[in-house]
């Protein structure tokens, strides 16, 4: 029998670091609160994140700041059409002095990876990254190397300039736990950004955690209590993307070509727990599910030609689902 009160108290006391971490990041990243929360969700629930947004919205800065704050190793890989898998994972270099091959590890051997403009690299490079994301290990030559934990990949996609890109296939997009869409900051936020950049000294973050703290926090996420009512709510949401007519959503039947996979249920539950922890709660409430629902589902729902012709996107579909499925 779980003592939720005790669990809640424990989580409240042990999750203090989250508020501190968020405040520290906020010294450098102005606005983008939702993005920071989602990156923390990914970090705490061991899931990778796909970020979509126009250039200049502090995607790189956010991940770099987070890496500094948790004292983690950070790598930024700019994906280009001529990139090779070995440029990512590493390769064997022949050492003439010792007359033997030695391993040179690639930039993927870091805690936080920013795969910038992932859709600009060909499929074989994308596959190499996605395989490493899934397996959490890399094989160079005949030797297999475990990737360091925490291992978080943030891949970015630019919604504009689609010429000459290699869009990620649905099966590979499904491996990202969250897909975050970021928008421009508000006028007030942009004023502060402008002032900070014009100041003689740009704010910097202090390392307040270490990677081991993140691993402990991940254990804490697993302890967050999720009631059966919330589980049913998650299942209703995911199943409604597959069989809308069974959930009084007949109008969506013609708009969805394929529904969310079982990964959606797993990640929605996991992300809800992580979000509850970020809110320093020991149990999940429907608000947590709804908060991360768009980020978990938006890249997992296939739209039909009719939906595209009607200019309906997955956001509209998810909104309709959330407005129809009864909250427990």
């Amino acid at each position, binding site marked *: 029998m*779980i003592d*939720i*009160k005790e669990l*809640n108290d424990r989580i409240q006391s042990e999750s203090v670091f989250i508020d501190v971490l968020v405040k520290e990041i906020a010294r450098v990243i102005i606005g983008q609160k939702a993005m920071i929360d989602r990156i923390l969700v990914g970090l705490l629930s061991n899931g990778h994140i796909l970020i979509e947004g126009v250039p200049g919205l502090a995607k790189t800065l956010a991940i770099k700041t987070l890496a500094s704050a948790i004292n983690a190793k950070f790598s930024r890989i700019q994906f280009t059409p001529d990139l090779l898998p070995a440029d990512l994972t590493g390769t064997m270099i022949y050492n003439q002095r010792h007359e033997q091959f030695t391993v040179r590890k690639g930039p993927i051997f870091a805690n936080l990876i920013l795969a910038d403009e992932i859709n600009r690299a060909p499929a074989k490079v994308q596959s190499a990254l996605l395989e490493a994301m899934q397996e959490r290990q890399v094989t160079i030559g005949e030797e297999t190397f475990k990737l360091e934990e925490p291992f978080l990949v943030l891949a970015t996609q630019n919604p504009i300039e689609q010429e000459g890109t290699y869009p990620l296939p649905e099966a590979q997009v499904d491996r990202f736990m969250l897909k975050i869409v970021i928008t421009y900051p508000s006028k007030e936020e942009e004023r502060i950004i402008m002032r900070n950049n014009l100041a003689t000294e740009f704010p910097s973050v202090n390392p307040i955690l270490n990677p081991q703290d993140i691993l402990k926090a991940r254990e804490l996420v697993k302890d967050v*209590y999720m*009631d059966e*009512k*919330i589980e049913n709510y998650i299942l209703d949401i995911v199943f409604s993307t597959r069989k809308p007519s*069974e*959930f*009084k959503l007949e109008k969506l039947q013609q708009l969805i070509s394929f529904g969310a996979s079982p990964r959606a249920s797993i990640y929605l539950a996991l992300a809800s727990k992580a979000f509850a922890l970020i809110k320093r709660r*020991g*149990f*999940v*409430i*429907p*608000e947590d599910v*709804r908060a991360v629902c768009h980020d978990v589902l938006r890249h997992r729902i296939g739209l039909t030609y009719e939906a595209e012709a009607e200019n309906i996107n997955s956001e509209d579909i998810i909104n309709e689902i*959330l*407005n*129809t*499925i*009864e*909250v*427990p």
Partner: protein
Amino acid sequence: MKKIQNYNKHRKTKYRFIISTLILVLFSSNILLSLDIQTNAKIDTNDVLIGDQIKLSLEVIFPKNLRLNFPTIPDTIGKIEILARTPIDTIDSNAQRIMRQNLIITSFDSGYFEIPPFYFIYEKEDTKELYPIATSPLMVKFSTIPIDTADTIRDIKPPLDVPYTFEEFLPYIIGLLLLALTIYLVIQFLKRRKPKHKLLQDYDPKIPPHIIALDELRKLNDEKLWQKGEIKLYYTKLTDIIRTYIERRFNIMALEMTSDEILYELEKLNLDNGLIETSRKMYQIADLVKFAKFLPLPDEHSFCFNSAVEFVKSTIPVEISNGNKKEDK
């Protein structure tokens, strides 16, 4: 001897009778033994009702080497009308040829009418001269329906009842089967649909939402769920009653909203701040019970129940005394 004389006398008389009978038969049936041409016209009856149809058969039998023209019969013969006719049928048999034609005739006048002789023209082989040969004339009686003047005038008879056939019933049977199939499919579809929320199922829009909500709250109180240890069920029902009430009363989709979203929507309605705060506390306790196995104290159960009742009572639409229109609180 006398006996023999009587016998011879009797024999002679017998021969005379046979010969005279044969001559009579030959002449009456237009059998011309010298040319071997036989004509015949006959009808199936000669006493019919006006408008009834009779079959008239014409036949001629003649040697094959003889040229003979069948008579051309017009559409009417006096008061007799030809309704239909078959093509002339020619049959060759040894040295003879038979030509036949059947006609359907009628008359719409009553009385005795003669069917005149029909003339067949043939050509003599040696002299190449044309000669007619005719059929016998025929008499037909077309009678009218006898009218009984003593009888009263009767109404027109109704249409006859013709017995129904299976083909006539078939479209109706198919229609009924299709209707039954449609009803079956609709029932199956409705069964498979997710049932509506229990509280929304039997909602009579004529009853004000607050009456329904207060009634539901009273029933919930009578069930004594939390006293029986069914605390989670108690709070689920309590919040469902209030959310359903909000949906009906304020047209807010509260059943599909989280507690925070409901409170946010209520704040926009400019309700009393104290009411919002007690509602917030009630929702917090309910969420803890529903999602975090929280066990409230008896005082908290009473607080939540009273808050729900207070919320409903405080949001009942009130009437303005100096006007007839209703105004929301």
